[in-house]
């Protein structure tokens, strides 16, 4: 059989050539995809929300940092995957014994993507820009303790503080504290220029942001594997799932719909990686308004809540119950869910003690997001069990919520996921929408700032968490999970999120 074919082929030149050609083509086709796969150096990361501008130093939305932080922009310090402060553009630092002078040794040989060198003058510019009178930096208060910025030489930066600020190094690692240089700063909103491992390429508004490897990146030891990265914005959860399944997107580090996560389990192509975020879902109460001004009422409401049930019903069982405004990612985390565990009888008794034996009724201003609506409905049922009637009023987030609740303080109860990392100090801020006032708590927060010893700070954060767990200025419900779904061959994405980000430095493909 094979002989006759061979002979036939031998008899006809054209046929022989085409058989040869076919064999060659087949060989190439066989080899080519493997060669391609081994060399894969690009990634498409899906995000639910498109950033509004690309400058994290002038606007708050988390999505800005999730595209630019550590990829395009870097800071004097940085926050690593475990939430710890690490040196970055500042190679080392010295803190004076009184905690009021920080002397940074800056890294040499660092240039911005436009070729401008990074030195102490640039660092001074960036910090003064963030703390200046016209600054619209979303974390402007981080720099309020800085009295002056000095530059004794090109690689030394000195910050003189009005009072010790123990969180300063951590805050300088934040997206809002990244280093920008004078020439390009004003245009960072649309064409960000930083010192990071990736350069900004283009932004197709409404669709994607493209980045490319920075060949002149100062940190050679980082060994960046990706040549290209694309952030694609897909808002609809069904569309996110379709894009993952169809392979249009390699990863969704924060997939939007917990109820669809199960549909990826058992996939031979996609891995489901569930971690913790910094998103604390809490039902804040107006502590200055009756009956929430009575601690016993707040405690009773807390005891009416079965947190496990909330997580189950609102977020498909994915998420970690919390007993205070703190996440397992944070230093000094304590599990305080046992302080006021679910106990309907005790809750009723406490309500009676506070003078509400027959309960009361109030309104929750719940944003339109799925977690807020579902959680509110579950809370409504739980409160009903202790005789408390809660009406749900949907309040558009962010626009109406910010003006009504956050700025206006016009609410009984509300529910929102607080996205900022380590923001337990919001309970010490005055004014802040909880209207919670507790000198003892403020004192602990002041001590945290007075100390720059991490162990001491962790201990103090423990005290702060305990005070909140007992005082219940807000109902502490759960930490949102980081629902990571990505190609099994893709490695190096962060599993947890001690700070909202999509750090690409270590991302690579593995065969």
């Amino acid at each position, binding site marked *: 059989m094979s002989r006759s074919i061979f002979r036939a082929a031998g008899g006809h030149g054209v046929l022989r050539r085409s058989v040869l050609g076919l064999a060659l083509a087949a060989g190439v086709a066989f080899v080519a995809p493997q060669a391609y796969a081994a060399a894969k150096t690009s990634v498409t990361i899906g995000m639910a929300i498109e950033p509004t*501008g690309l400058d994290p130093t002038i606007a708050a939305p988390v999505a800005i940092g999730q595209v630019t932080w550590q990829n395009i922009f870097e800071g004097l310090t940085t926050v690593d995957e475990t939430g710890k402060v690490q040196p970055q553009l500042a190679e080392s630092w010295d803190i004076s014994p009184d905690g009021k002078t920080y002397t940074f040794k800056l890294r040499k040989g660092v240039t911005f993507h436009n070729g401008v060198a990074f030195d102490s003058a640039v660092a001074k510019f960036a910090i003064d820009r963030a703390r200046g009178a016209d600054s619209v930096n*979303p974390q402007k208060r981080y720099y309020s303790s800085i009295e002056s910025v000095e530059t004794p030489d090109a690689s030394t930066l000195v910050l003189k503080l009005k009072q010790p600020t123990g969180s300063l190094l951590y805050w300088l690692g934040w997206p809002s504290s990244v280093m920008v240089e004078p020439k390009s700063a004003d245009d960072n909103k*649309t064409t960000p220029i930083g010192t990071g491992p990736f350069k900004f390429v283009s932004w197709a508004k*409404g669709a994607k942001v493209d980045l490319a490897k920075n060949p002149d990146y100062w940190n050679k030891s980082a060994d960046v594997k990706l040549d290209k990265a694309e952030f694609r914005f897909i*808002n609809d959860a069904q569309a996110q799932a379709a894009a993952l399944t169809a392979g249009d997107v390699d990863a969704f580090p924060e997939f939007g719909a917990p109820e669809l996560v199960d549909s990826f389990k058992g996939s031979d192509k996609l891995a489901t990686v569930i971690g913790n975020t910094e998103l604390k879902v809490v039902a804040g109460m107006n502590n200055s308004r009756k009956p929430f001004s009575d601690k016993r009422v707040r405690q009773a409401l807390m005891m009416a809540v079965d947190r496990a049930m909330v997580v189950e019903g609102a977020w498909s069982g994915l998420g970690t119950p919390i007993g205070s405004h703190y996440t397992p990612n944070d230093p000094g985390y304590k599990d305080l869910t046992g302080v006021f565990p679910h106990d309907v009888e005790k809750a009723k008794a406490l309500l009676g003690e506070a003078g509400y034996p027959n309960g009361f009724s109030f309104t929750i201003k719940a944003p339109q997001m799925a977690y807020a609506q579902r959680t509110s409905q579950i809370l409504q049922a739980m409160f009903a069990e202790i005789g408390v009637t809660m009406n749900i009023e949907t309040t558009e987030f*962010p*626009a109406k919520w910010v003006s009504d609740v956050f700025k206006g303080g016009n609410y009984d109860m509300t529910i929102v996921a607080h996205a900022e990392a380590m923001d337990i100090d919001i309970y010490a801020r005055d004014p802040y929408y909880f209207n919670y006032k507790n000198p003892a708590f403020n004192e602990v927060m002041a001590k945290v700032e007075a100390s720059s010893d991490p162990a001491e700070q962790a201990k103090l954060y423990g005290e702060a968490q305990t005070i909140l767990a007992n005082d219940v200025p807000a109902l502490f419900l759960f930490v949102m999970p980081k629902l990571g779904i990505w190609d099994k061959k893709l490695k190096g994405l962060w599993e947890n999120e001690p700070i909202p980000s999509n750090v690409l430095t270590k991302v690579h493909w593995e065969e």
Partner: protein
Amino acid sequence: MISILSRRIASLIVTLIVVSLLIFVVMDLLPGDPAAVMLGTSATPETLAALRSQMGLDQPLAFRYLAWLFGVLHGDLGQSYTYGVPVAGLIGERLSVTLPLALMAVVLSIVIAVPLGVAAARRHNGIVDFVAGLFSYLSIAVPAFWVGLLLIIGFSTKLGLMPAGGFPGWDAGLWAGFKALIMPAVALALSQAGVLTRVARTSVLEVMSEDFVRTARAKGLSDRAAIWGHALPNALIPVVTMIGLQFTFLIAGAVLVENVFNLPGLGRLAYQALSQRDVVVMQDVVLFFSAMVIIMNFLVDLAYLAIDPRLRAAG
């Protein structure tokens, strides 16, 4: 004829100006301070004041309106708060997606609906009419975004034939752009075709019972010739109206479909601008939509004049 035209154009301009004022005032009444939205939950009063003055929000309403109107008349639609780029460019980019999408959907719905409507009218009360009726009801009842989801599940997730969503941009090639738009266009067209089928059927039925068609048939013309040659041109007026209305509806109403297919179209821009309180973008997009509706109506009026000589005489 000239006087009709100039009167229509004058009323067009007055309408547009009144609409622009309305849009501006309504947007201003919307709850939510754009500066506060941008700063988020860590805003301090000083930062807020600084940003408000940078955004020009501390100027009086009348001043801001006139500045906006003056800009729009000079082709300057202002800057988007959130993107930090000129709005005109943004709308242009989005139109390069939404316009072809709407056009494809309109063409598809005409291709489906007109023959189906005519066939239903000819075999009126027959099986074709019944099937056409069923199709109409179903397609009107089933939302376009749901059809879109089914298409994605079928052709993208299961069969892997089509992209699941997104838009590669026209520079990726005509075919790539077309492929990204065809499923959303089908989803939009199906729900439009239902309405259009009914309009076409009713309209043809009405015209068929009129004297001139009976005369044509009496002269010995075949059914087919009587319908395509005499009845249909006269039945076109309501169909053209409907298409005009649908086109504006398609442009404005593609929000859900654009979301399902993750298309960076005008509908999504409007939606996003609203939730971010990007007031400048909102004003411009709504003005654009309104202008489209007003101008479409104007064009439909002109089409009437072209189709029906009696209207010209009456004017």
